[in-house]
């Protein structure tokens, strides 16, 4: 009778669950991400992830064997040593031998478990000799990736959840059957296959965690600190993860998408990215007209110089005026270029060499042709480059 009741409850629950999730029936397993009703860890695409999967099976089997053995004894006892079957209680209540045995044997088992785990810990903490180093910065609520070292150095972009999916979530995800729901980003992290990728994590605001289960990595991204982890993907494909440290209201909405490409495809991607970045940058060999570069210089002046030299170029107190200054009016434009590149007066006037050649050329041209300064001189980026 009890069994009947159990079955009814169980089938009732299954029915309820199935009814509830009819919307999800159209969803398929996501390669490199979670599967539908998946029971175990995601398939590992790195040696480390496979090792973790192996360790989990190893532990699960040992634990299950112990569990079945121990509770086999208990249920046997429950079956045989009941009052209702007339069993009379024994009177023993200690045994030093038995007690030592069941302290020492588990201790030995624990040591045996620790051995393979130790090997895996050492392997997954070894971030040396990376082929490519990428910084992952957690922001509320997106990821920033900077390629620091290796092929593609200098590439940098921000990766955010697809906005349409965020909207779907707000609308109750009615009728949504996307395999990559809440996992689709605008700019995935792209890396080459079979290369050791070192991920340096940090954060801008609160703690986040960079985690991709199928690659076997999880590393907190901590503001003010840098930590690192690594992976070497063994197959091209897409791998998905999500932020795994509570970081505020949009915690569930900052996924990680790692796109692993073949060496050729990766090179092509890098070349493409570099072309795009170059297009956004100034061409240092461009020859400017006086009008264009003065306009540009006005902006640079307002952003960097006006705080001390004042918008009217007259300076204030110990700050020297630029309006009518000898260096500015000098026919030899390299004099003023040197001042900007190296600073002056023990760096009371600091060095501005971090500005681009174009910006320095522009701001010098602006000061030479503004206020009462009407030299008509035009400084080109090439002049600045030559003076560096």
């Amino acid at each position, binding site marked *: 009778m009890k069994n009947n009741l159990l079955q009814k409850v169980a089938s009732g*629950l299954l029915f309820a669950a199935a009814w509830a*999730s009819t919307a999800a029936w159209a969803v398929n397993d996501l390669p490199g991400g979670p599967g539908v009703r998946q029971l175990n860890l995601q398939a590992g695409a790195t040696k480390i992830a496979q090792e973790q999967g192996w360790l989990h099976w190893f532990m*699960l089997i040992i634990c299950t064997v112990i569990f079945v053995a121990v509770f086999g004894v208990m249920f046997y006892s429950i079956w045989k040593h009941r009052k209702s079957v007339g069993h009379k209680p024994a009177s023993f209540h200690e045994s030093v031998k038995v007690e030592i045995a069941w302290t020492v044997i*588990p201790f030995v088992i624990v040591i045996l478990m*620790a051995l393979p785990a130790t090997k895996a810990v050492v392997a997954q903490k070894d971030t040396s000799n990376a082929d490519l180093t990428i910084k992952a910065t957690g922001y509320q609520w997106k990821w920033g990736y900077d390629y620091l070292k290796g092929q593609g150095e200098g590439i940098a972009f921000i990766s955010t959840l697809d906005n349409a999916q965020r909207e779907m979530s707000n609308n109750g995800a009615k009728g949504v059957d996307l395999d990559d729901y809440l996992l689709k980003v605008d700019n995935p992290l792209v890396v080459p296959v079979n290369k050791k990728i070192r991920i340096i994590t940090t954060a801008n605001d609160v703690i986040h965690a960079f985690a991709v289960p199928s690659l076997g990595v999880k590393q907190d991204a901590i503001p003010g600190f840098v930590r690192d982890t690594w992976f070497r993907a063994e197959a091209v494909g897409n791998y998905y*993860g999500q932020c795994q440290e509570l970081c*505020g209201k949009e915690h569930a909405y900052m996924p990680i998408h790692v796109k692993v490409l073949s060496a050729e495809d990766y090179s092509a991607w890098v070349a493409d990215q570099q072309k795009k970045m170059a297009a956004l940058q100034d061409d240092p060999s461009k020859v400017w007209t006086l009008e264009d570069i003065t306009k540009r210089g006005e902006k640079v002046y307002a952003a960097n110089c006006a705080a001390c030299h004042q918008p009217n170029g007259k300076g204030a107190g110990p700050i020297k005026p630029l309006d009518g200054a000898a260096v500015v009016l000098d026919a030899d434009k390299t004099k003023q270029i040197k001042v900007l590149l190296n600073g002056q007066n023990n760096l009371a006037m600091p060095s501005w060499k971090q500005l681009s050649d174009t910006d320095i050329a522009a701001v010098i041209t602006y000061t030479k042709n503004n206020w009462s300064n009407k030299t008509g001189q035009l400084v080109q980026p090439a002049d600045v480059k030559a003076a560096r």
Partner: protein
Amino acid sequence: MSAVLDSHGHAVGDHGHDHHGAPHGWRRWVYATNHKDIGTLYMLFAFTMLMIGGVLALLIRAELFQPGLQLVNPELFNQLTTMHGLIMVFGAIMPAFVGFANWMIPLQIGASDMAFARMNNFSFWLMIPAAAMLAGSFFMPGGAPAAGWTLYAPLTLQMGPSMDAGIFAMHILGASSIMGSINIIVTILNMRAPGMTLMKMPMFVWTWLITAYLLIAVMPVLAGAITMTLTDRHFGTTFFNPAGGGDPIMYQHIFWFFGHPEVYIMILPAFGIISHIVPAFARKKLFGYASMVYATSSIAILSFIVWAHHMYATGMPVTGQLFFMYATMLISVPTGVKVFNWIATMWKGSMTFETPMLFAVGFIFVFTMGGFTGLILSMAPIDIQVQDTYYVVAHFHYVLVAGSLFAMFAGFYYWCPKWTGVMYNETRGKIHFWWTLISFNVTFFPMHFLGLAGMPRRYADYPMQFADFNALASVGAFFFGFAQVYFFLFVVVPAMRGNGVKASAKPWEAAEGLEWEVPSPAPFHTFENPPKLDATATRVIG
């Protein structure tokens, strides 16, 4: 009439002319200094908080029933998870065990009351404003704290004013816990009846003695961590604020130095309760009493050197990960000893399965599953996969619900005749047990799968692949919740009203201990003169 509601409970021991029956009306409870009344208050308070925390949990499960946001927005969702954790840990589990301690420790050691009766009153009534402030923080501007029950910096620095209310509430609850612990330690060490040596003390008393030391050691550490959070928020310090050179990871070290012993604070008294019930219903003495005491002490000591296993993903050095991994795995040895001892106690006994025994066996069986997932989690490489996923949620609900809560149900059914003077309704007790056991597993077992597959915890919405197991867990959670309402309305309330078969002084055939030497219900005053004990310190001989 039961002692719980009896306004003039008295039987033996009510002979001194300066002792009166229980005071009447509200004064009896507000001015309570009687350990039994205060124990009752603690338990009613804890059950109230269990219900509040349970409602929050059901709101969480309702939102997660299907993918997408239906009921709550992500801000409120984070508040619900945070407050569910804080209320269950600090409002339900801890006070409930203090309630058991208040009721049972003086009865079990043959003392007339707790050592500091007025401080006992104070530590209870301190909790009311603290709990009100904690639960009321939902109505403050910006809502309740939403940084998770672990209150990690620097997310706590972004919280609204309710964070300060939460911190203040935790300070007060901590002060209450420390006072309660001092009271328990002094009572146990000084007020045992002559002849009850330390190694003859009941296991529940032993486990609470060790727990009380743990509490005194770690509650101030928590107070320090949240005070530093408070000064970071308002007074310009930067202990944990990276913007001023602070270290957010230092917060986690301090928090978990509190947090891990806290885990054992919530389970050791449960071990004590189970160690009484299994022998009573196996009609056989507890196997390996001494090794139980040593195992409990070992667990307590080890609990101080494992804290950073909560932090494998923060990026500790290799040696740090290895040390904390080994130390954590070591804890499974004394824990295993306890389970083996209980099973050896059952072995060749003469068992019956009344509700206390059902819950005790359920505890051993299901808690051990939580123990094994704990062992799996202790391995740093596997933890890298499942840290901060639903696997962890499953693990700690297996040890906190199937562990602590089941043990408290077992303890309630076991001692209910002593508290109320009547037997609970056995059929309803069995319904409660099976209903609870099944719905618990339906709720939390699928969470193992979710976590292994990679579903992060504290997520208001999740990828579609996780939908089915979430729906199943939500259905189970509602069944589990209603089981507890049933327990209160159909088991607890009738017993408190005295509806039921009158209980004898010792309703369980083979139960041992001084609490069974006084009548049921236990009179308002017991053991006013130290009892004379037999050689085993379990019987009063005059």
